[in-house]
C-alpha cells in the first residue's frame, strides 16, 4: 500500500498543499465575483479571509506538517462507526437537509458547506488509512461523484424552493417564464464543443494521474478480499448481505426497474410537470429521494468506503485488518420461534417420509415466517388503504393502489430486514434451504 509513514507523510503533504491552494483559489474567485459583479463588499471580505486561512494551511502542508484530526476524534469516529449509527446518521442528515432546505439552498450557505466538507476531507487525508481508501484509483471517481451528486441535488432543490415560493405568491414557476427557444447553431453546438474539449482534457489528466485499478490475475479458487462489485452495483451487493441471492439479485432489482417504469401509470398528481417543485409533489419527492439517496447512494458510499476485508464494516480511519472479529451469530426466525420461544427443537419430518409429508413439516417449521410475510404483503395494503392512504386509495382505484402499496412494501422490506439483522441478528424470515427459498 504505502511505504514508511515518513514517505506517506511527504507524499500526502505535497498533495494537500496543492489541494488547499486550489481551495484558496476557488474562494478568491468567489470573493472577486462578489465584490466586482455583485458589489457585496462585506461578503467578499469574509471569503477573502477564508482564502488567507486556506493559503496558510496550504503553506503548512507544503512545509511538511499538514493539519489533521486529533487522534481521539478519529478513534471515537472509528468506535462509533457501525451499521446502526451509519444508517440512522445518514437518515437524520438527509432529514435535516430536507426540513431545512430553505436555509441550505442559499448560495452562501451551500458554499460554506462545500468548503467545510472539502477542508474536513483534507484534514482526514492526513490519516493513512483514510487516505488509502479515498485515493484508491477505484474510489477517486466515487469521491468526485459524491460531490457532483451533492451539487446537482442542491441545484434542483434550490430551483424547487424558488418555484414553491413563487407558487405561494401566485406566480407561475420560473421554467414557464424562460421558455424561449434556443438555437441549435451556434448556441447548443458551441456548448457541446466546449464540453467535449473540457471532458477530453479531464480524461487525459485522469488517465495520466491515476493508475489503472488492476488486480492480481483472476483465479477460480482465490477471491480478492474484500471483493467489491463495480461502484454502481455496491448498493446491490449491500442488499445481498441481507437477502438470498435470488431475492437481492433478481427479484428486488427487477422490481426497482419495473417500479420505476410503473411510476407514470401510478402517478395521479398532474402538478410539477416540467418544472422543479417539492411542495406540490411532496409524497412522490420523498419516496423517490428515499429510494435514491437513502437506499441507493448511501449504500454505495457504505460499500465503497466502509466495507473492508471479509465484508466487515470498518471506521473511516481504521486499518483494514482481515482478521477483525465481529461476533455475528445470525439466527433464522424459525429458530427464534421454535428453539428460543417454545423451547423445543425445529420440527423435522421423520426420516424416510415422502415428499408431501416433508413439505408439510417444512411449512410447519416456517409457519411463523410465512404468516408474517403473508400478513405483511396481504394484510397491510388494505390496512393502508383504510387508514394512512385513504385519499390515495380513493383517487387511484383498487389496482393502482395495490400496485403502489406493494412496490412501497417491497422497498420498505430492505431497511426493515437490515434493522432486523442489526438488532436481532435475524438471518431469514422464511428459510427453506432445501429448496433454495429464503426470504
Amino acid at each position, binding site marked *: 500500500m504505502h511505504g514508511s509513514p515518513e514517505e506517506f507523510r511527504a507524499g500526502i503533504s505535497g498533495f494537500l498543499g496543492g489541494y488547499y491552494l486550489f481551495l484558496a483559489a476557488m474562494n478568491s474567485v468567489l470573493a472577486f465575483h462578489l465584490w466586482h459583479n455583485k458589489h457585496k463588499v462585506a461578503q467578499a471580505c469574509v471569503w477573502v479571509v477564508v482564502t488567507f486561512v486556506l493559503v496558510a494551511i496550504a503553506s503548512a502542508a507544503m512545509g511538511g506538517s499538514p493539519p489533521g484530526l486529533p487522534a481521539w476524534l478519529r478513534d471515537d469516529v472509528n468506535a462509533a462507526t457501525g451499521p446502526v449509527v451509519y444508517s440512522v446518521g445518514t437518515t437524520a442528515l438527509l432529514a435535516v437537509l430536507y426540513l431545512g432546505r430553505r436555509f441550505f439552498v442559499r448560495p452562501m450557505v451551500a458554499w460554506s458547506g462545500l468548503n467545510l466538507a472539502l477542508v474536513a476531507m483534507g484534514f482526514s487525508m492526513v490519516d493513512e488509512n483514510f487516505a488509502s481508501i479515498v485515493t484508491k484509483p477505484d474510489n477517486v471517481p466515487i469521491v468526485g461523484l459524491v460531490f457532483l451528486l451533492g451539487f446537482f441535488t442542491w441545484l434542483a432543490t434550490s430551483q424547487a424552493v424558488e418555484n414553491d415560493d413563487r407558487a405561494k405568491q401566485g406566480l407561475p414557476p420560473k421554467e414557464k417564464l424562460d421558455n424561449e427557444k434556443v438555437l441549435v447553431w451556434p448556441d447548443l453546438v458551441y456548448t457541446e464543443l466546449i464540453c467535449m474539449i473540457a471532458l477530453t482534457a479531464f480524461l487525459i489528466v485522469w488517465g495520466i494521474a491515476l493508475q489503472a485499478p488492476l488486480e492480481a490475475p483472476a483465479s*477460480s*479458487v482465490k477471491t480478492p478480499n474484500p*471483493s467489491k462489485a463495480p461502484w454502481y452495483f455496491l448498493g446491490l451487493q449491500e442488499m445481498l448481505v441481507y437477502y438470498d441471492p435470488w431475492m437481492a439479485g433478481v427479484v428486488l432489482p427487477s422490481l426497482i426497474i419495473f417500479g420505476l417504469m410503473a411510476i407514470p401509470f401510478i402517478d395521479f398528481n398532474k402538478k410539477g410537470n416540467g418544472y422543479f417543485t417539492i411542495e406540490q409533489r411532496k409524497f412522490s419527492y420523498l419516496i423517490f429521494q428515499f429510494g435514491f439517496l437513502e437506499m441507493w447512494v448511501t449504500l454505495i458510499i457504505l460499500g465503497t468506503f466502509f466495507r473492508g476485508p471479509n465484508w466487515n464494516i470498518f471506521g473511516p480511519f481504521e486499518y483494514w485488518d482481515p*482478521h477483525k472479529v465481529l461476533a455475528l451469530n445470525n439466527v433464522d426466525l424459525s429458530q427464534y420461534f421454535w428453539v428460543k420461544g417454545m423451547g423445543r427443537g425445529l420440527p423435522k419430518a421423520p426420516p424416510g417420509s415422502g415428499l408431501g409429508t416433508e413439505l408439510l413439516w417444512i411449512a410447519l417449521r416456517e409457519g411463523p415466517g410465512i404468516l408474517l410475510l403473508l400478513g405483511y404483503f396481504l394484510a397491510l395494503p388494505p390496512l393502508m388503504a383504510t387508514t394512512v392512504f385513504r385519499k390515495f386509495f380513493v383517487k387511484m382505484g383498487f389496482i393502482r393502489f395495490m400496485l403502489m402499496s406493494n412496490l412501497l412494501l417491497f422497498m420498505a422490506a430492505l431497511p426493515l430486514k437490515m434493522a432486523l439483522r442489526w438488532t436481532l441478528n435475524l438471518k431469514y424470515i422464511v428459510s427453506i434451504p432445501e429448496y433454495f427459498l429464503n426470504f
Partner: protein
Amino acid sequence: MADKKKMSVAEILAAARKADAAAPAKPVASGEAAEAPAGETAPAPAVKPAAKPPAAKPAAAKPGGARPSVAEMMAAARAEMAASATVAAKMADGAPAKKNDAAPKPSAAVKASPKPAAAVASGPKDTGSILAEARSGVKPGPMSKAEAALKAPAAKPAAKSEKTRIPVPPMPPKPEYAKPKPAPAVTEDRRGFLSVMMGSFLGIGFTCNAIVYGLWTLGTARFMFPNILTEPPSKFKVGFPSNFAPGQVETKFIPQYGVWVVNWEYNGQNEIYALRSVCTHLGCTPNWLEGEQKFKCPCHGSGFYKDGINFEGPAPRPLERYAIHLADDGQLEIDKSKLFQEEIGQWSDPASFVAV
C-alpha cells in the same frame, strides 16, 4: 384534367366518387335477379324473409350503386349464412315434398355455379373466408349489366341453393384456352431456385454470405467442444489419513483443487471430510481464518464453522462436501463429481466422510 395543375387529394376523391355513382347500379340488379325467382319458385314463407336481407341490404344502403363496404359485405355474408342454416333446418325437419322439390335442383344449381353448393355444405365459417367469399363476387370498378347479372347468383348462394330455380342454360364446354393449365414442370422450379441464388451478382453475394456465416456458426459450435480439457481430474489422492491431525484444516489443496480437507467432528463423530471451497450464498471462495477458526467469505461476509455449518452472514446453507473414501493403497481419495449437502441430510452418507 385539362389544365396542367396537379389534382389535390380532395379532387381525386371527388372524381372517384363521381365515377362510382356513374357506375351501373349493380347491387340493385343483383338483388332483383335473385329475389324474383325465389319468390316465384319457393312458396315457403319462413325461408323467404331470411333470404331477403342479403339481397335487399346492398340495394338499400347504396342507392348510388357504389361498391359495398367491408362491413356491408360481412353483413350480407352473415345473413346468407343464417338463411342457409334455416333452410338446412327445414330440410332436416322433414318436408318430403320440398325435399323432392329440391332433389333435382342441385344438379342445375351446381352447373350454374359451383359455389353455392360449397357454401351450403361447409357450415359456419370464419370472418376471413366470409370476407373472401363476399369479395369474390365484387370486382372493383364499374361493371357492365351483363357482368352484374352473371355475378348475381354467386353473391346469393343460400337463396339459390334451395329455393331458386333460375332457368339457366347448361354451360358450354370450356374452350381449350380456358382450361386450367397443368402445373409447371418440377425441373423449372429447381432452375428458378438456382437463378434466385446465383442468377445475379447480388444473389451470389448473399449466397456466399450465407455460406460463410453458416460455416462460422458451425465453427463456433465446434469451438465449444475442445479436444483437450485442461481441468484437473475430478478424482485425486490427498495422502494418508495420518497426515491430517485432529482439528486441522488442510488448505494446501485449495490452489489446485478448491477443496479443504478437514479432520473434525460432526454429530459427535470424528471424521475426515472434504469441503468444497465455494460459498453457498453467491459462489465466492471463502478463506479459512486460523485465528478465528472459521471460514469467512470476502464477498458478503458469510461465515462457516469448521464443520462447514453456516452461522453468520447471508449464506443460507452449509458448505458442501465432496465424496471421499480410502483408496486401495490406504490413501484418501476425493471425488469431486459427487456433492453432499447437509440440509437434505446427505452428510450422514458414509461416502461423504472417512471415520477416524
